[in-house]
């Protein structure tokens, strides 16, 4: 702010206070909306999780009853197990694929950005639309795309989405198909930060491509991998729209993850107290996983830096 050269201390204070007032009132509206939409419901949800709430009616304080009921319910534990299976299996496929794609894109040069764009198209689509699309791809008929592949191998077309064993792997493949490429972008950035000289020095030292990948690329990529794995974990652990669209948690609850059971308990059964308890548990598991990553990969990132 400009002020007269001989301003008294008092008028400087007034100016500073005015600037602070202007600044705060400019930030105010955005802050208010963000708190109202993201923070306030989270606090209210925690409050509701300690109450018996059915069909929008609060029937009183229940302490930890919703939580103890969940912990005693074997379905809830199975849902946690399915969530972890879905999350880690998707990660185990998506991260190596994203890394391969990132190295491919970098090596392709001019065509690399075309490939990246193509791979990102499914990510730009809505999960529920992706679910509709894949239901048609997977339709168990010789006229369907996957059905035709079964027929070509001399097998009758299988309905992968209603098969208790194959439904979950199918869901995982569709989830990876939709969004692995967004991780590629961050890994491309990470690969670009590794000095080329290191690879030259490694080949002088007689390291082959695989050794220099293990000894140079992976450790130096740790910070980017940490970001990618954390983001994908949150994204897969909270995935619900694909499951609603593809399997509806079935068959016989085989794809009913924690996120899906939150949806079902809260919005279908309208047991909002219990639904919020599931949300709080999900939040804690999310935070726990991220904390573990930061411990493991953060240490490596620190060592590499």
């Amino acid at each position: 702010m400009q002020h007269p050269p001989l301003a008294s201390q008092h008028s400087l204070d007034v100016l500073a206070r005015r600037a602070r007032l202007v600044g705060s009132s400019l930030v105010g509206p955005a802050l208010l909306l963000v708190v109202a939409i993201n923070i306030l419901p989270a606090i209210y949800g925690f409050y509701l999780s300690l109450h018996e709430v059915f069909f929008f009616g609060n029937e009183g304080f229940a302490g930890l009853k919703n939580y103890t009921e969940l912990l005693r319910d074997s379905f809830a534990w199975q849902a946690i197990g399915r969530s972890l299976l879905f999350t880690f299996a998707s990660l185990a496929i998506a991260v190596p694929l994203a890394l391969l794609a990132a190295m491919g894109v970098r090596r392709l040069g001019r065509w690399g950005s075309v490939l990246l764009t193509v791979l990102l198209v499914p990510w730009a689509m809505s999960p529920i639309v992706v679910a509709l699309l894949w239901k048609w791809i997977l339709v168990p008929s010789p006229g369907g795309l996957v059905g035709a592949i079964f027929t070509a191998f001399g097998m009758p077309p299988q309905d992968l989405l209603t098969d208790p064993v194959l439904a979950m792997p199918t869901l995982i493949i569709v989830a990876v198909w939709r969004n692995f490429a967004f991780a590629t972008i961050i890994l491309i950035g990470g690969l670009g930060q590794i000095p080329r000289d290191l690879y030259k020095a490694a080949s002088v030292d007689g390291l082959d491509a695989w050794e220099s990948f293990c000894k140079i690329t992976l450790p130096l990529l740790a910070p980017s991998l940490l970001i990618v794995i954390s983001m994908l974990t949150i994204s897969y652990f909270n995935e619900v729209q694909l499951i609603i669209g593809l399997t509806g948690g079935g068959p016989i609850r085989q794809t009913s993850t924690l996120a899906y059971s939150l949806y079902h308990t809260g919005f279908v059964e309208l047991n909002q107290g219990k639904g919020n308890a599931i949300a709080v548990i999900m939040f804690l598991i999310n935070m726990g996983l991220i904390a573990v990553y930061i411990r493991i990969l953060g240490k490596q990132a620190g060592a590499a830096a």
Partner: protein
Amino acid sequence: MKILSRTLLLLACLLAAIVALGPILWAVSTSFKSTNRIFAVPPEIVPQIPTTQHYSKLAAEGVQWAFLNSTGYAVLAVLIALILGSIAGYALTRYPVAGKPAILLVFLGAMAVPGFAVLLPTQMLATGLGLYNTWAILPIIYAGHILPFAVWVTRSHFATIPRELEQAAEIDGYSRAEAVWKIVLPGAKPALLAAATFGFLHCWNDYVTGSTMVDSPNLRTLQVALIFFQGFHGRDWGALMAGVVIATIPPVLIFLLFRKFLIGGFADGSIKG
């Protein structure tokens, strides 16, 4: 050896591109086949006798109104988020703001909250406030989801624009607001476009918020309308794939137009997947 690895790389990339685009192109092809040709064996890759009957059927069911709803909600939410977000982002780089570190933490923390986890209490709050099932509820919620990113990306871009540029404009007789409008905002165009693109995709591609915050058929989003359509005509794959195509064109088009800014925003870590 070099030629061999180059060929393998190209083949792998071609395969990846086919896996990414194949299912989408198959949906496009299906949407133009007459109903009795959809299950033809062997499958017809390109429709022999193309028809637009499935698109007409969607129009007859009024799906275009849901398309307009989705567009309206998304545009409104993006506008709210960009206006409030760039004002806040500007103030956070140029003014002293009481409690600035705490405020930055709120914006950062809000990005980490998965919107789905707080949907249930949001629905109850919206019902209590009389906003449930109104035209305003979805733009407000979506704007709240996009705002933290809008603040974050604009703030980091405004910080790179020297204050002297604005002061020079003010000496030339512009008001401060005019200086911001003419000098600062154009400089932050990549940040604004990244936030707008991410925001549009977020709103347009949402299903759970749309299906839990509004109930009336005339307020439905396109995603919700397609799921209802599926409920009534479960095996009408031609019409369903026509729905997939029209629901995919806007976000993919926006993505293709603005991918440069979106990928830039990703790369500096300011956008989540």
